[in-house]
């Protein structure tokens, strides 16, 4: 799409080069196959080595651990370009980078970092993030997965996790569990659990109508025993997984724009060439209204993201700021995808066009990583100081 507000002038040459490199990769490797993958309900694993070689995983983590060492604006642009392809593809990268590599980087020991991070950057080890449970989504503090320390220092973990991206593909799971029968959220610690450990099972969640090109699984842990060094030593309390979520949500704010841009580009191109009543439908007022709204929201969303990225790079951003961006950008993206779908008419229901796939995917993005409603209350509390969450 045209750079209507010359936002490129706010980006460095390297940031633009990063964006363009990922864009080219997505154009060449994701777009040609993703419609089919979505219909078939499979994640295109064959792109993982290419993504790894590009340096997409944990791109904003330091070079000393085999990562690209990019700044956060560049990281955001990567997420944007991946989701221009598909939310499922971006989810894979979000999980690997922000929810698996990041906790190891932030809470892990030096040995854990040196052992896992380079292999995760190279795609050799895929990870997943086990926080959400069947009865505890918006309220992770209530989780019941429990890890009990044994006399030899090892831990035995029991519980179940649900809606876990990469759950069946991963070799390592970052499992968050309360510890030693303490039901308070302050006892929550993180563990790196190899998925081939005895007692660990994953099961593909079937019947999804959204994020179909993504592996979403249930995890069951039955007396899963892990050694002492599986514990992420610096993790402690719900705060730890929430910090990871803030990282992921930051990326999602950009990602949602990618989906919106894809839908807008498809709709504008269609509007200019689709003839009805002897003229392009782009010449009809109602379609122009759709396109004008889409353009406006995308531009606003982009400016939001660039500023958020710069704040994050300065080390001076807050989770509430991320809530605002995630909530806004996903919301406008769902509207844009739906309106694009409608502009495409009957063609808009076909998998060969991307609007309806993005529309369906974005419903998951609306709900995960903190639902729209949860972020609303985060902002409400930020404004009023009053907690409206319920209990």
């Amino acid at each position, binding site marked *: 799409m045209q750079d209507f507000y010359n936002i490129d002038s706010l980006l460095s040459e390297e940031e633009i080069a990063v964006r363009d*490199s*990922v864009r080219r*990769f997505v154009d060449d490797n994701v777009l040609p196959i993703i419609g089919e993958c979505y219909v078939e309900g499979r994640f295109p694993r064959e792109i993982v080595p290419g993504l790894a*070689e590009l340096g*997409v995983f944990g791109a904003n983590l330091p*070079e000393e651990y085999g990562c*690209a060492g*990019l700044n956060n604006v560049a990281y955001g642009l990567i997420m944007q370009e991946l989701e221009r392809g598909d939310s499922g593809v971006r989810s894979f990268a979000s999980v690997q980078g922000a929810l698996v590599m990041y906790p190891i980087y932030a809470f892990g020991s030096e040995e854990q970092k040196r052992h896992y991070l380079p292999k995760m950057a190279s795609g050799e080890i895929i990870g997943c993030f086990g926080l959400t449970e069947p009865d505890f989504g918006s309220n992770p503090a209530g989780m019941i997965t429990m890890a009990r320390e044994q006399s030899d220092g090892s831990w035995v973990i029991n519980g179940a996790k649900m809606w876990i991206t990469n759950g069946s593909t991963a070799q390592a799971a970052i499992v968050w569990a309360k510890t030693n029968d303490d039901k308070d959220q302050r006892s929550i610690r993180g563990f790196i659990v190899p998925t081939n450990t005895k007692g660990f099972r994953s099961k593909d969640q079937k019947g999804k109508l959204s994020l179909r090109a993504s592996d979403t699984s249930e995890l069951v842990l039955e007396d899963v025993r892990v050694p002492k060094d599986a514990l992420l030593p610096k993790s402690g309390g719900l705060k730890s997984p929430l910090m990871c979520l803030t990282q992921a949500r930051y990326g999602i704010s950009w990602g949602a724009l990618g989906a919106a841009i894809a839908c807008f580009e498809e709709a504008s191109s269609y509007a200019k060439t689709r003839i009805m009543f002897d003229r392009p439908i782009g010449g009809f007022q109602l379609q122009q209204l759709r396109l004008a709204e889409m353009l406006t929201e995308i531009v606003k969303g982009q400016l939001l993201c660039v500023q958020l990225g710069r704040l994050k790079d300065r080390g001076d951003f807050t989770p509430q700021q991320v809530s605002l961006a995630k909530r806004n950008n996903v919301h406008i993206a769902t509207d844009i995808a739906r309106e694009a779908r409608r502009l495409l008419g009957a063609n808009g229901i076909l998998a060969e066009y991307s609007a309806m796939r993005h529309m369906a995917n974005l419903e998951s993005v609306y709900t995960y990583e903190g639902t729209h409603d949860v972020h609303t209350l985060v902002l409400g509390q930020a404004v009023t100081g009053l907690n409206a969450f319920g209990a």
Partner: protein
Amino acid sequence: MKIAVCIKRVPDMESRFRISSDGKVVDETGLKFDMSDFDGYAVEVALQITEKLGQGEVVVVSLGPDAVQEALRKALSMGAARAIHLKADRVPSDGFAIARALASELKSGGFDLIMFGKHAMDTMSGVVGPMTAELLGLPNVSAVSKLDVVQGRGTARRELEGAAEIVEFPLPAVVSIDEGIARPRYPSLKGIMAAKKKPLESKPAQLDAPRLEVTKTELPPDRQGGRIIGEGAAAVPELVRLLQTEAKVL
């Protein structure tokens, strides 16, 4: 192993091209630019050669205004070790003038291989590579679709019409790369960041007055297409009839 790759920054060929108001050239304002396709293959081949040998450096060279540094930096982010920018206000249409400027820069570089893409996508001439070879007194091998380098000698497959030649030659040599040999790697994100720190030397190009100029540029007449004569195998008889009677090609 020292390999020089000469590259050119050209507009994105998917663009819709407009002619300048004086009718002489393509108006390039507002267009997106990138390294010319075959040049990307040449950079890729050069990188693969040094990687296979486990040693060596790839140096990229480009002549033109400051903007060509974008293409040089892209090559650096693919893995080239350093870049040389021969500064000129514009890229002359006279390939011989370009070749002389390049030869003058390259002759003392101690390069084992000097590589070019088959032709630049905008000028589509393909003369600069062979001319540079001639000026440097080096063997020239063009239309290369396969290249192997071992112990100071090269073997290449050259694509001709309906046939191919397998040739052998001593290094140093000049090689021009054709289709089929490699697809250029995506600059990795680490590569993009590393490129910033790699040496990019800019110096004025030694250019003679041009003796070949582009004096007019025109768009070819649009084809009047769009005639769909039918659907499925049922449309075949009508097609054959039209090819015989109207198009007269059958």
